[in-house]
């Protein structure tokens, strides 16, 4: 199950990327969060045959990849979940869609276009999320969520879960490796061990949680979880960044920029 090692690596890797001292990383986290959500909403809102319009939204991820000096190849791994999904959902479009569109005077099946836009939407939205988490650390993201008045209880749970995810992943790794070394012909956990294996892990996790609680009590914890930053200040660059991109999104949404620019050539 090197899936687990992969997960641990992924967490460490994203953390490393987001903690670089880099221009985009320094932009206010709330600005990046808002832009990501607005970007994804915009991309997804394109009409299903509007391939050119959707494709134009390429500029945002492309720019951030370049500005933040991130590797595009690195992000391709993330597409492995979304691509099969959108293909499954869109695969029958060319067959079921009875509408046709003229391109170069040739009739093209609308379903092919809608499938292409679906794939583009899928890819762009995943890339946007990747860019968010690759340039914003989890701590700063939590601060941004608090600034949006997401309840403290929710943000605290997110933070604590994130803190212990790698610890638990390594424990799962250990148990399953120990299991595999004694069950060389099996690929997964045999059903007789379902209960005990995961159950032991659960009990150990509960014990750990109790210890964490004791540790918190001994350092003065009395119920008020106030130990995260509630606010980060804005600077002019943050506002400029926000307005610039919102403007770009608006322009690219309303006009098919690619076709307009291309029209200048013909």
């Amino acid at each position, binding site marked *: *199950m090197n*899936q687990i090692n992969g997960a641990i690596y992924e967490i460490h890797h994203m953390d490393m990327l987001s903690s670089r001292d880099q221009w985009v990383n320094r932009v206010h986290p709330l600005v990046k969060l808002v832009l990501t*959500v607005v970007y*994804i*909403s915009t991309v*997804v809102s394109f*009409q299903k045959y*509007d*391939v*050119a319009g959707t494709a134009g939204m390429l*500029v945002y991820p*492309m*720019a951030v990849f*370049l*500005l933040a000096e991130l590797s595009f190849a690195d992000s391709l791994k*993330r597409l492995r979940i979304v691509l099969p999904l959108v293909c499954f*959902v869109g695969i029958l479009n060319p067959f*079921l869609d009875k*509408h046709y*569109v003229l*391109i170069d005077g040739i009739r093209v099946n609308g379903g092919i276009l809608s499938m292409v836009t679906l794939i583009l*939407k*899928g890819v762009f*939205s995943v890339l946007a*999320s990747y860019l*968010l*988490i690759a340039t914003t650390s989890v701590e700063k993201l939590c601060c941004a969520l608090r600034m949006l008045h997401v*309840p403290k*209880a929710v943000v*605290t*749970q*997110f*933070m*604590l*879960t994130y803190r212990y995810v790698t*610890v*638990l992943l390594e424990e*799962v790794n250990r148990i*399953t490796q120990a299991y595999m070394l004694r069950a060389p012909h099996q690929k997964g*956990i045999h*059903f007789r061990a*379902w*209960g005990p294996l*995961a159950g*032991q*892990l*659960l009990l150990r996790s*509960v014990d750990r*949680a*109790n210890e*964490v*609680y004791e540790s*918190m009590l001994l350092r003065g914890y009395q*119920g008020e*979880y106030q130990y995260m930053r509630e606010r980060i200040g804005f600077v002019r660059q943050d506002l400029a960044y926000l307005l610039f991109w919102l403007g770009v999104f608006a322009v690219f949404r309303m006009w*098919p920029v690619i*076709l*307009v620019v291309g029209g200048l*050539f*013909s």
Partner: protein
Amino acid sequence: MHMADALVAPAVAGTMFACSAAAAVYSVKQVKLDIDTKKVPVMGVMGAFVFAAQMINFTIPGTGSSGHLCGGMMLSALLGPWGGFLTMIGVLLIQGLLFADGGLLALGCNIWNMAFYGCFLGALLIWKPMMKGGMSKVKIAAASILGCVLTLQLGAFSVCLETYVSGITELPFGIFVGTMQPIHLAIGFVEGLITAAVLVFVYEARPELLFGSTEKEQEEGRFSFRHTLAVLAAAAVLTGGLLSLAASSNPDGLEWSIEKVAGGVELEADGGIYEAAGSIQETTSLLPDYGLKGSESALGTSVSGIAGAAAVVALCAGLCHIFKLFRKCSEQE
């Protein structure tokens, strides 16, 4: 069953965010973290446990395939509906952000489809009533299986509904549902068995860990059953209203299916919302030559498309490099 962003329209995503947010705020009130302070670290570590445990491959006897744990039911059985729900939100956020398993825009949908059904319905409708009058291995197993199956069925159906209303796929609703439901019935059953195995183990080792084992926990949520029904009813009304708005502002999907169903006769949609939605679409596509409302129209030439794309990419790359150079110079000063 995690939904990707590409599968939802913004209006649908927004609606589900609102529903999930309402459920979250309600949970925060109910969980009373300021009184029972121990729950805070327990919820956090349990969230990490569920996340990690969902990566374990449990081999299904007889077949060659593997199944996984059902997070929602597991957390409900350990933390109760409110604690479980809040913890699931954290788990879904990590899955979505760090592993692209579920989109950011679709988070509201995912929270509803998985956490809400798993924790509110799973715990309140199934776990609690069944555990009344004492627990037993059989009851635990039955509740797990039933809970998982119900959660996944409702979740899968919601996914179909949300995707369909967003107008993403040409798949007829019936066929979509017809493939999703049976698959998730099987998955739900397997997940239920695995979850049951683990919960029975916990019951035999440390029964006090299970939700509902103490008198206090049995009291908890007694009146919340009615509240939950009220929340569900409100959500249904809200969802219905907003989704119909979404559907009407996305006439393509619905139009097409109306055409197919009614044999080309377009149903007269009554004024107000439909016209408003129509005019929004008019203004957002400033060049109506490129309007593509399901009819044959010129998309332009492919040459202009390719040339335009190349030009835009080059311009973007160029601007970025200039910007970086500019920053380097100003930083060196």
